[in-house]
């Protein structure tokens, strides 16, 4: 997926607007003093993306802001999403959304509900009804929808965890996210794909079906449901002859057959087969809708492609002209046409380079397809045409046959088990066709590839890791943690020093993103927000002047430079893959630290009165 944050927008209570702009495909650095609101940016991004509780600090920031917003680029579309500032601890339910990236000058007015906006954004994160929680937990239910917020776990390294010795992902103190991580990890990083999961489910289903069939062939008489299935064809024929009513279910049909045989009467009146046609036309309608929706989401691309060539002409106006003879022409005709063309031309110019919303079309299509499948099944159980009896003889023969069948199947002592060997063979063949690579193998391969990628980062920053510089990357899949392993040994070591922990965090996140990009992952957005990785060397970012920096160990300076170099190199690596990646880093270091790094971009310096909410703009 493609994603970057173009700008952060704040609508202040003083009616002013404050924006901070970031570049795509760069390491965006905001540097400055402490208490200037750098960290708040991370909290604001989280808040705008549907956080259910917020961490934006009330003093200075929240007390001065009316609305928080983001202008983001998602899969070639530009959105503005904004959320009204929380009242105290209570987050606001008011959202503003623009599908064309329009940033209102004054405070936005709410125009969309959270659930609808989430539905839209979820579609952009590749989430539909098939992306679900694979197994349950205390708070998460199996088969419930995946929230796009779970995938955002891969996008932040907050100040709480960057030097944590044991914890690599944010929000792990909340039960929901703690349970979500292991449940979505495989799908997020591409170990497993939705397609494979569905295949496995299908396979599981077939296997269960097979087991049932095998059991059935051993003990038919006990299975009423299967007994009815055996008679399905007879029931269908009886319905065709009009001996049994069209809309009776399997159980009652069999009872009706029994009655018919026992009573020696000619059965009920002929039931007209209207249902068949009804279902047929329903299938037609659903199919047409599916075709239309597919075209709706794909063909616009072609239209866009030909736009350049037809820049001066307008299709609707041309259409009007082609159907000239159908129009009436009064004195205002020319005015209307001129006016309409002008208006349309303006719209055409304005929309030429924009992409429409897809929303949840793919989800709707999937729904319709399962509807169609069900209808087709229903249709199979119905006779296509009412069959008439040529003469009474046929009818009596049929009734006789039915009687024999009923006796055969309904006799519990009957050892004549129905022959379902063909069905079993069929199921076995289907199962064989569905090859799905086992997840365990893929996990193994993934872990190896991740270690390989991380090993390169270790080599790059070797000097900063001290005696661990020659160690090997050892990702622990089950704990989702990164360890270091002494070469040629099997055991991992507990790495000391917060500097090393910081590097391990960078390694793991960059490694995961590298693999996600290589796998063309669609669920995790290619961006990363890192809150002050120089923390191990300077602690809280309160060193303000050059004076105190002199006290800093030169080797620590070298480590910070290496870390920045690593981030810079990562952007280059992403570009070599043909991808773009965005990083937003909050720091307090000086620009001289990134001299010569081509992918680093200085966003702003929060110093001398400049801050997220500049002193001059305080209410």
């Amino acid at each position: 997926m493609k994603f970057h944050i173009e700008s952060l927008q704040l609508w202040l209570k003083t009616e002013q607007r404050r924006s901070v702009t970031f570049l795509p495909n760069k390491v965006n650095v905001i540097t400055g003093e402490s208490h200037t609101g750098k960290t708040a940016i991370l909290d604001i991004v989280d808040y705008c993306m549907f956080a259910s509780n917020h961490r934006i600090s009330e003093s200075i920031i929240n007390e001065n802001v009316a609305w928080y917003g983001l202008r983001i680029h998602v899969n070639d579309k530009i959105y503005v999403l904004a959320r009204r500032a929380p009242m105290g601890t209570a987050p606001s339910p008011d959202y503003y959304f623009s599908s064309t990236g329009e940033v209102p000058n004054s405070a936005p007015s709410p125009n969309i509900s959270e659930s609808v906006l989430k539905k839209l954004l979820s579609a952009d994160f590749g989430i539909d009804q098939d992306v679900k929680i694979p197994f349950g937990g205390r708070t998460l239910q199996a088969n419930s929808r995946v929230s796009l917020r779970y995938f955002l776990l891969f996008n932040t390294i907050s100040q709480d965890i960057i030097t944590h010795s044991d914890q690599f992902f944010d929000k792990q103190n909340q039960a929901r996210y703690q349970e979500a991580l292991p449940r979505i990890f495989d799908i997020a990083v591409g170990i497993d794909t939705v397609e494979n999961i569905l295949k496995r489910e299908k396979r599981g289903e077939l296997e269960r079906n097979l087991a049932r069939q095998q059991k059935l062939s051993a003990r038919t008489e006990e299975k009423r449901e299967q007994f009815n299935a055996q008679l399905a064809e007879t029931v269908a024929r009886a319905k065709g002859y009009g001996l049994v009513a069209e809309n009776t279910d399997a159980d009652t049909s069999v009872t009706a057959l029994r009655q018919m045989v026992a009573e020696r009467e000619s059965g009920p009146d002929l039931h007209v087969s209207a249902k068949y046609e009804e279902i047929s036309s329903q299938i037609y309608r659903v199919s047409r809708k599916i075709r239309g929706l597919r075209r709706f989401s794909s063909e616009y691309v072609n239209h866009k492609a030909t736009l350049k060539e037809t820049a001066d002409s307008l299709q609707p106006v041309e259409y009007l002209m082609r159907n000239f003879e159908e129009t009436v022409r009064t004195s205002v005709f020319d005015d209307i046409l001129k006016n309409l063309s002008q208006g349309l031309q303006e719209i055409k110019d304005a929309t030429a380079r924009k992409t429409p919303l897809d929303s949840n079309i793919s989800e709707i299509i999937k729904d319709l397809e399962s509807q169609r499948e069900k209808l087709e099944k229903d249709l199979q159980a119905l006779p296509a045409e009412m069959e008439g009896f040529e003469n009474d003889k046929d009818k009596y023969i049929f009734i006789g046959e039915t009687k024999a069948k009923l006796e055969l199947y309904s006799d519990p002592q009957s050892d004549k088990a129905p022959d379902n060997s063909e069905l079993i063979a069929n199921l076995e063949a289907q199962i064989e066709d569905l090859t799905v690579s086992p997840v365990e193998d893929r996990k193994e391969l993934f872990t190896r590839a991740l270690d390989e990628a991380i090993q390169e980062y270790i080599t790059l920053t070797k000097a900063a890791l001290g005696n661990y510089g020659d160690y090997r990357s050892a990702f622990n899949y089950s704990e989702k943690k990164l360890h270091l392993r002494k070469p040629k040994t099997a055991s991992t070591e507990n790495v000391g020093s917060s500097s090393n922990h910081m590097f391990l965090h960078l390694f793991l996140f960059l490694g995961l993103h590298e693999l996600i990009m290589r796998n063309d992952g669609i669920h995790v957005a290619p961006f990363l927000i890192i809150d002050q990785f120089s923390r191990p060397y300077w602690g809280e970012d309160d060193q303000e002047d050059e004076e105190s920096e002199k006290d800093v160990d030169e080797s620590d300076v070298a480590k910070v430079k290496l870390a920045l170099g690593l981030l810079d190199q990562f952007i280059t690596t992403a570009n070599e893959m043909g991808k773009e990646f965005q990083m937003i880093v909050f720091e307090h270091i000086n620009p001289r630290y990134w001299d010569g790094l081509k992918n680093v971009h200085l966003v702003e310096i929060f110093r001398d009165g400049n801050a997220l909410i500049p002193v001059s703009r305080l209410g």
Partner: protein
Amino acid sequence: MKFSSYYNNLGINAFAIASVLKEAGFLTLPKVALILPVVAHRETVKKLADRRFRFVSFEQYLIDNIEYFYNFNERYSASLTPMVNALQLLCEIGVVQLKDNGAVAASTLPFDASMGKRAERVQRASANIAALVSGNAEVFYLNARIEL
């Protein structure tokens, strides 16, 4: 599927445009052109005529009901000629005036039960239709994928 067959009724087209315009007051012609394709969709009209329905924004409506839009472009082009004709009729009888690059409601075309069920539904939905088409025209045209 030919949509043109739905539009042979100049009366109901004119009535729909007039009722929506009355609610909106003023609409540019590209926005007027959106009225008939909306009216042509039974489910849309049914939903918009429902008293419980609350219009929030075009985006909210679109994302929630994107399946209503899949053949919007077809409906749009099929209703162009009828729109131009109906608009001229309304101008001639003085219900609508062309003004400032758009159309304004000059007087009302009152609803009468004899106009039929469909007209009644359109009448009930007209305030919501007006809200739906009078937002940002670019956003509507882009997302309804109307080919220009």
